[in-house]
């Protein structure tokens, strides 16, 4: 075990891969080159359309131990992961390494496949029941969690080889041009799968809406697609795109959003031409609304917003208070309509948004990012993966990427949840290093990272409840008291990779 830059002990090797301990957000310089296999010569009207998923699995030559990838654009409405994995299990294939961009509660059936040995490891975000199975030691190998940007980087660097990528699409043609922007199961952008399509050995598009060639618009191009399969349904539209995403009505959460926006205004960030990243969480939606109010009041315009796009942001685009929306994933019907119809609502890939080993990504051009956390500590380190009881229940998402990129990274969180303090002496798991976090905003007070002397200087004399993080911590302890630490086992069930491919922390088994 080697101690890394944030003081966590990292094993030398997992699953046969040598680990590099985290060195600092921008301190690991990679070497090597980006390579991919050259496909055989393409011929006139090659037949790509197959009968069913089983035929695709056979033609792709999926064997024991294969690395299989999926995207999570269908979120909790997804049918495709379960369909494909069930077929793989029926064919008696085992020891699959699953490489999804994220998993959701709908993927509960995977737990049984894990127990049967069909799946030996997951490298990807795990939300809900699969995360719980991982935490309680049911998965054979050590799982690997990466940020969205880190996942793209790992694929490009050849750190993980994808044998076969299954890409769900709400519309596709028989040669594999595919999109998520229209069709009964539409979900918007398909950017999470772009890197998989380019680097996987075999690529299968699965759609419930086969359209005449050429499918337009299309994110995934036929040049990368081996096979196309038509199925009855790729997902439950009600759960893919929720009808409404609502601003929080909790007074404390509204207060947090208000503090956050007021802080940004006081440091002079909210001005003509600024940019920010937002999501669908209650607090960040509220912050977006308050920013919108300021833009309208002063009649100024944001240059771009990177989403997590919702109807709220779409309205700002329509009204001219935001020039361009850059959309990695969207959350409601209004956003779906806008992406399809508004030329200033632009689909972006994860590589463009978040890849550290690129020559610049959108995150780096953000003035502000609003992010959440399950825990934050006195060093400003953030945990988004585990709960305070040690259970691994969430993925990283773009957290590390946006935090490292944005000019001001704000963690907007209630100071305690269900009587447990969110601010800790040490977080249970370090997901995102404190050096990339600038401000913690809670309803009890605001703490600025001492590194950001500029922000401290600009907010001198502010009426906002700005205090040292230690002060915020002791204020909180008076309310919640100090909770007991969870009892964890010895076994490392997952590692948390930083976006540059180094390892920032490990997650240990929780005793059931």
């Amino acid at each position, binding site marked *: 075990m080697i101690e890394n830059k944030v003081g966590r002990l990292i094993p030398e090797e997992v699953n046969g891969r040598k680990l590099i301990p985290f060195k600092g957000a921008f301190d690991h310089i990679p070497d090597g080159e980006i390579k991919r296999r050259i496909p055989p010569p393409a011929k006139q009207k090659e037949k790509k359309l197959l009968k069913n998923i089983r035929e695709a699995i056979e033609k792709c030559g999926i064997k024991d131990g294969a690395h299989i990838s999926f995207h999570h654009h269908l979120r909790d409405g997804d049918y495709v992961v379960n369909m494909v994995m069930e077929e793989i299990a029926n064919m008696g294939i085992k020891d699959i390494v699953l490489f999804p961009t994220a998993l959701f509660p709908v993927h509960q059936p995977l737990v049984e496949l894990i127990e049967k040995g069909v799946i030996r490891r997951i490298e990807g975000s795990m939300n809900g029941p699969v995360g719980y199975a991982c935490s309680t030691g049911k998965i054979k190998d050590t799982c690997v969690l990466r940020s969205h940007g880190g996942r793209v980087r790992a694929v490009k660097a050849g750190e993980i080889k994808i044998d076969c990528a299954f890409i769900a699409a709400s519309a596709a043609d028989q040669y594999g041009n595919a999109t998520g922007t229209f069709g009964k199961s539409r979900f918007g952008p398909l950017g999470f799968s772009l890197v998989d399509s380019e680097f996987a050995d075999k690529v299968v598009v699965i759609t419930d809406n086969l359209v005449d060639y050429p499918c337009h618009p299309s994110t995934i191009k036929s040049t990368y697609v081996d096979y196309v399969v038509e199925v009855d349904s790729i997902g439950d539209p009600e759960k893919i795109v929720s009808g409404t995403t609502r601003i929080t*009505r909790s*007074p*404390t959460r*509204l*207060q947090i959003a*208000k503090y956050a926006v007021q802080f940004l205004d006081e440091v002079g960030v909210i001005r003509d031409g600024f940019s920010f990243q937002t999501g669908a969480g209650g607090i960040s939606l509220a912050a977006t609304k308050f920013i919108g109010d300021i833009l309208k009041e002063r009649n100024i315009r944001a240059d771009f917003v990177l989403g997590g796009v919702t109807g709220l942001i779409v309205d700002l685009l329509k009204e001219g208070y935001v020039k361009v929306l850059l959309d990695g994933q969207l959350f409601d019907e209004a956003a779906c309509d806008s992406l399809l119809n508004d030329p200033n609502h632009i689909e972006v890939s994860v590589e463009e948004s978040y890849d550290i080993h690129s020559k610049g990504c959108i995150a780096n051009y953000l003035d502000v990012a609003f992010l959440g956390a399950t825990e934050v500590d006195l060093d400003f380190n953030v945990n988004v993966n585990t709960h305070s009881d040690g259970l691994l229940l969430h993925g990283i998402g773009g957290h590390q990427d946006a935090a490292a990129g944005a000019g001001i990274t704000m963690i907007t969180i209630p100071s305690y949840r269900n009587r447990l303090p969110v601010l800790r002496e040490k977080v249970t798991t370090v997901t995102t290093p404190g050096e990339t976090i600038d401000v913690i905003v809670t*309803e009890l007070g605001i703490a600025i990272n001492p590194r950001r002397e500029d922000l401290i200087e600009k907010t001198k004399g502010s*009426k906002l409840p700005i205090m040292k993080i230690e002060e915020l911590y002791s204020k909180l302890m008076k*309310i919640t008291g100090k909770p007991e630490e969870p009892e964890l086992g010895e076994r490392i069930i997952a590692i948390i990779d930083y976006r540059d491919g180094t390892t920032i922390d490990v997650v240990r088994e929780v005793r059931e």
Partner: protein
Amino acid sequence: MKDRIRRSRLYIPGNNPSIMQNIAVFGADTVILDLEDAVAPPEKDAARILVKYCLENVDFGRTERGVRINPLNTPFGKKDLDMVLSSNVELIFLPKTESAEDVKELCSLIGDREIWISPIIETAKGVLNAYEIASADPRVVMLCFGAEDFTRDIGAERTREGKELFWARSMIVMGAKAAGIQASDTVFSDINDMDGLIQETRFAKSLGFDGKGLIHPSQIEPVHMVFSPTQEEIEYARKVVDALREAEEKGLGVIALGRKMIDRPVAERAKRILKIAEELGLLEVNDD
């Protein structure tokens, strides 16, 4: 403090601990921990205990500690009062106050303790007796209006535009002001309609009210905005006060601002605005 700023009186149900814990965060001028309408009879005892612990343990920040007890002629009123008197409460809200006797009964039970009283007027009789209620005891600091019960009492329909309340609102303001105390308007119950809230609050301010009842923390900011002096008002008040000082220095009986005469009440109002502005930290600090 008797005449502290009371722009907002935020109702918090006496049986809702998750809201109580954030009182300082919300920043209302006054909170009313409500033991009356918000709490069903079987829960009265539990709520009373909870409110006691809230008063003793929760950080109130700059917010004034108020409790609405049950009317003294109910089985709960006296028990509520016993609890309140053993706590650090600052202001007691007395619901359904109809006469000076109601206030005097409460005062005799409070004894010598320095606790402020705010009668809530929500019946026709109470409205007619507004002045005698307001002047019943020096500890009465504010009259509040409760429109829901009032409209029921007079047999009128509660409407959005509120014509049925106009006379009662004015009567309450008159009663309060004649006694030299504050007046606080009824609650606005649609928490999703901020524009409506602002409109109604502006109207209340124009009638002479000093504050308004709130049922949700999100209503605090707009109501505070309406009841806080604007920069223009502060600027004007400054000029008036300067002119007043100049007149006094020169021994002039008449105060003039430019070519306009300033009456005494205008000067008093200007002083009040500057005092509020100072308390709210709205006065710009002059470096020179």
